[in-house]
């Protein structure tokens, strides 16, 4: 459904006179670019949930934004339903939002505090000229019921909702145009455990009911393992391993995946505590991004970045020791 081919994205700080001057005087570049995503390929299959796991700074949110066309990749292609997103003109790009929708992490900051819930939910319909005022209102009421909110609350402002309700609102907004692909960036990390489970069940129900394809971005490995069909683990802007959920714990995983798993399970007998810190995106290490912290690293890891190699059907791993 969605294909990423060798996509990379880096961010440059805005050029400023001061920095240019400083670079001239010191004769070296000041303020290099942040390499958020460094050339990775990934395939999202229709009707599945792809879970994208990684720590902060691993580039998972950037990748999510590239997937829905919010960022243009520096290199590589994003192919959605057979068409390269880069080849679309402005109007076709706008039409894309009928197919791909993004659900933001923090519902408190992604909902406009001055716009009532009804208007926020129907905004997409207005932009695409779908239905008249009455039909839109009816559709919004229907959406609210679908996500478990009473349609009576349609004229409330975002601050009058609780955190869990706001997350339901932003889900309803993402679904208002009946997209076929939903990209959810940390849908449950801003809410409490007892409410979190409500949102997770809602997402799973809606996926089954509407036949949605989903990309779930999260740092929470247990959560992703619960929901996703296919799990992709990112580290330092690169994919470390992609595997179907059924293979979890059945195969020899990438050392980072093992460590991530151990850090989620504090009761486990085999503790793996990693030394060191995730790589600096301004200045990523040569070779495998994980090698400075890897417990199994060998000489080649420091010089050569391992390619993603298939280990089985739907199972890919980027590690020199796992081929």
């Amino acid at each position, binding site marked *: 459904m969605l294909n990423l081919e060798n996509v990379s994205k880096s961010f440059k700080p805005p050029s400023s006179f001061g920095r240019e001057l400083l670079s001239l005087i010191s004769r070296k570049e000041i303020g290099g670019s942040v390499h958020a995503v460094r050339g990775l390929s990934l395939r999202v299959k229709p009707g599945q949930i792809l879970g994208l796991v990684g720590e902060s700074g691993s580039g998972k949110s950037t990748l999510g934004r590239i997937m829905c066309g919010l960022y243009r990749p520096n290199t590589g292609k994003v192919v959605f339903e057979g068409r390269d997103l880069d080849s679309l003109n402005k109007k076709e790009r706008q039409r894309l939002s009928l197919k791909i929708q993004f659900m933001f992490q923090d519902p408190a900051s992604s909902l406009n505090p001055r716009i009532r819930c009804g208007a926020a939910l129907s905004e997409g319909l207005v932009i695409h000229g779908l239905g008249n005022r009455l039909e839109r209102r009816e559709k919004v009421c229907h959406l609210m019921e679908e996500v478990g909110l009473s349609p009576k609350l349609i004229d409330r402002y975002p601050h009058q909702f609780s955190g869990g309700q706001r997350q339901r609102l932003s889900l309803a907004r993402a679904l208002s145009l009946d997209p076929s692909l939903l990209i959810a960036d940390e849908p449950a990390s801003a809410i409490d*455990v007892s409410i979190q489970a409500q949102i997770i069940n809602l997402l799973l129900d809606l996926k089954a009911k509407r036949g949605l394809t989903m990309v779930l971005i999260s740092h929470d490995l247990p959560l992703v393992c619960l929901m996703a069909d296919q799990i992709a683990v990112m580290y330092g802007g690169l994919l470390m391993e992609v595997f179907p959920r059924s293979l979890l714990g059945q195969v020899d995983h990438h050392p980072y995946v093992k460590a991530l798993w151990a850090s989620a399970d504090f009761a486990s007998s085999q503790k793996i505590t990693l030394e060191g810190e995730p790589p600096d995106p301004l200045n990523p290490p040569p070779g495998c991004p994980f090698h400075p912290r890897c417990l199994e690293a060998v000489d080649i890891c420091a010089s050569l970045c391992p390619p993603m190699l298939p280990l089985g059907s739907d199972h890919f791993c980027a590690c020199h020791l796992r081929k």
Partner: protein
Amino acid sequence: MITPDLNQKSANIADPVLKVSNLAVSFGRGRYLAVRGLDFDLNQGEVVGLVGESGSGKSMTAFSLMGLLPFGAALDSGSVIFQGRELTTLPPKERRSVCGLHMGMVFQEPLTALNPVLTIGDQVSEIFRYRMGYSKAQAQKMAIELLGQAGLPNPASTLKNYPHRFSGGMRQRVVIAMALALSPQLVIADEPTTALDPTIAAQVVLILKTMSEQRQTAVLFITHNLRLLTGLTSRVLVMYAGLIVEETKGDFSDPLHPYTRGLMNALPPLPSSGQSKRLAPIAGHPLSPDERLNGCPFEPRCPERLGVCATVCPPLTEKSGYGRVRCHLYYHA
């Protein structure tokens, strides 16, 4: 320098380091109740967890124990007895001398807990200079040793750097080192790993654990992450709507209260368990702080409520073999 005579060791070892009874904190002259009456104690060298969702009053508990309540919040009632000494009625100056020397605190956000315009060295050695009256050189030496214990690579060069040069995990190590610098009897860690990534959080918890064990320091570990506490604490206090609803074992092996059991079921199962069952969420929303208690705070959301739950708030009762629980289901049994 005022040093209250807390080190006399007149208190029995068996006596708890900290004894909190009926602690209540509110905002806006009693309109918003953050903490509705807490009773618990901490023994020497013990690590106790305090879990709760946001708004359950766990951070306000920490602030009131340290005497750091924010503007607008007030202590309504209760006593905090620390090593046989009542803290709530202590004059501010004397209370200040207890903090740091005998009680330390690890804050949630290490970036705001450190002063951005002072070097790490200044901030860490300040503790030794101010509290112990060490010379600058002596304090520096102590600071290097301390940061080394906290697992910072080359502590000597670290001293000259400013907080912004460090990652979140490194900053939190510095904050933990500062809280434990003078081997206090008690450290309150308020969500020390919430701002950190899972693999870094595991490192930081390990540092806190080893450093407090070396110093025989009791730790009150506040978190909303239940998983973090397993294997770390001996007892866990579960808070809901400003009350302790249950005191249970550190590994949550036999939770009694419907809320604790609900929380356990609402957590995504561990990958190792291999199951992918549907989660069982707790219906409804937590009690808001401006609501008064008529009965049990969890009654509106409880799947096992009884008729009496709506009208009478159950007391926190001892249940032999389990701990303490605030629930009518276990009151008469």
